[in-house]
């Protein structure tokens, strides 16, 4: 089958390959983990990875990608900090025949730019599946709060959509508040101090990422309100640990290793086996990870330790 053929083709490269990677910003744990994963898989597949840090800044990432585009690479993999901000240099690399693998966030709408493949989780699915886990635990009844990421973030928008799709189905669920905290733990803490004052009964809380969830947990603990069920997104090791210890109820894996490692494998296949978009690799690959609860937490941690998910 073609899939098998691709699998064979994606073996270790004979000659060392040079790949350039950039993701949103290494300040973010998720991105830093992705860097380790890319380097880990790169070593296995004989790829030397050069990193261009986006520094969580559209302008800085653009400059970095401009510089990337003026150098020679076998393939590149990019997670854009701001959609649409990197189109020009990325197009230049595509024109130069370099396979560009798009990770997690669109570089530009897919009909506008011909990337080799787009590996991303379905944010709507992630939002929905954690929300579902929370709602199920509550028995379809209770007061919930969603704390959003930055409103401009497509991931946050998808997660919010997923959340809303689920709560809509349960008339017993009351949504108390959905303010954004911009991924910022200080803002999250401020918001939650207010919520805990304002709402005497909160049953569950969904956060667009785990960092905010853990920061809010701190506030809940200080106010002795730890009975609130907490759901997050990302399932980075600290959150998995929190789930295992019962501080958080659930989180959903946003598989950083799968995406960054997948980018290595897709890139190597494109270079060594000439794998093409369509017949070889699908343009759009959904990389969703599972919901993490107490039951599967340990296994998830192990997989992450070995850059598998």
């Amino acid at each position, binding site marked *: 089958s073609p899939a098998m053929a691709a699998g064979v083709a994606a073996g270790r490269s004979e000659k060392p390959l040079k790949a350039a990677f950039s993701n949103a910003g290494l*300040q973010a744990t998720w991105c830093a*983990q992705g860097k380790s994963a890319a380097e880990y898989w790169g070593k296995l597949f004989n790829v030397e990875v050069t990193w261009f840090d986006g520094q969580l800044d559209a302008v800085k990432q653009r400059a970095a990608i401009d510089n990337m585009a003026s150098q020679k690479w076998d393939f590149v993999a990019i997670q854009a900090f701001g959609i649409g901000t990197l189109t020009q240099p990325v197009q230049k690399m595509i024109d130069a025949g370099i396979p560009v693998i798009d990770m997690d966030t669109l570089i530009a709408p897919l009909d506008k730019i011909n990337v080799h493949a787009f590996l991303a989780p379905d944010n709507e699915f992630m939002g929905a599946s954690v929300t579902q886990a929370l709602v199920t635990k509550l028995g379809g009844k209770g007061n919930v709060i969603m704390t959003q990421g930055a*409103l401009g973030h497509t991931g946050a928008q998808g997660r919010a959509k997923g959340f809303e799709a689920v709560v809509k189905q349960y008339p017993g669920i009351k949504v108390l508040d959905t303010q954004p905290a911009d991924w910022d733990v*200080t*803002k999250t803490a401020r918001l939650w*101090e*207010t919520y805990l004052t304002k709402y005497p009964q909160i049953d569950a809380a969904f956060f667009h990422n785990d960092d905010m969830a853990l*920061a809010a947990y*701190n506030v809940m603990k200080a106010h002795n309100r730890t009975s609130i069920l907490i759901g997050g997104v990302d399932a980075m090791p*600290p959150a998995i640990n929190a789930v295992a210890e019962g501080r958080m109820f659930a989180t959903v894996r946003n598989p950083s290793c799968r995406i960054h490692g997948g980018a290595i494998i897709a890139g190597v296949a494109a270079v060594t086996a000439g794998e093409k978009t369509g017949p070889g690799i699908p343009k759009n690959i959904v990389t969703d990870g599972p919901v993490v609860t107490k039951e599967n937490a340990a296994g998830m941690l192990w997989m992450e330790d070995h850059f598998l998910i």
Partner: protein
Amino acid sequence: MTTSSDVKAEPKSGSRLGSFLRGQMRNIAPFATLIVLLVFFGVASPSFATLDNAANILVQISVAGVIAVGLTFVILCAEIDLSVAAIANATGIVVAYFTLQESYVNIANVPLPAVAAIVLALLSCAFLGLVNAVGLTVVGIPSFIMTLAMMQIGAGICALLVRGQIAYAVPGFVAAMGAGSIEGIPWIIIVLAVFLIVGHVVLTYTRFGRYVYMVGGNREAAEYSGVNVKLVLGAVMVISAVCSGVAGMLGVAHFGSAQQNEFDGYLLDAIAAVVVGGTSLFGGRGGIGNTIIGLLILGVLNNGLDHVEIDSFLKILIRGLILLGALIINVYVQAVRENERTG
């Protein structure tokens, strides 16, 4: 801006009260702003005017508050410190770096005993403050640029130490101060109160504090009166850095995590608190009392906006406009007073 004249020697006793009130305008205007905000949010949201929420506000201003205490010293000297948030961040990360972290935290850190970790963190922020001080006083780099560079250096230190990861554990004492409470009162509020009181006492009742006002009010006169101006300037930079460092440690404990760029927002908050409170950017005027009012204005504004139902996207604009309004009132009142004096 049309009035102008000197308060000539021996003001007539009738105008004493008037001139006293005018003299107090610097303090009255911010206070009035605070009252207006309190009333507004109290009316707009039932959950705002509760005791619980008052405690919330105090907790919410505490980290920025400790930073603002140090910044008050700097601004009273007519200097500025743009590195406070970065130093806070770096210090918080240093103290976590020297603390044993859970196994899932992926940082090649160096666990030390709690005391050592705290001392090292304090030394780091003092050192960064010292670099600011040397740059300002010895090399002669204006504080605006010196601390701008230090801001980048602080961010660099953060990046290097945590490498994109998040650390969670801090020494128990720091954790207690940042997140614990005693008899229901969060320690962090008590720490803020202590910093404010000590800051006020130092500024008002010690020679050093008076030197700060002298240096800010007329640097040359201070020098001619035998004040070691460079020493005072250096000292305020170090004080500011140490306050920031303590705030950073508290913040890391309070928020439960140490990560890059965590405290970036505190730079503008702390500056705004000091300035909105009525301390003059040109030095020599204001004090901790003003900073307290400024902190409360900002705290009430941020907190209050969370309580009222407004379009999230509109909130940013509203916050900016209210801030501008407070500044206009504040500065306008000061300017009127100024004009009366200098014509």
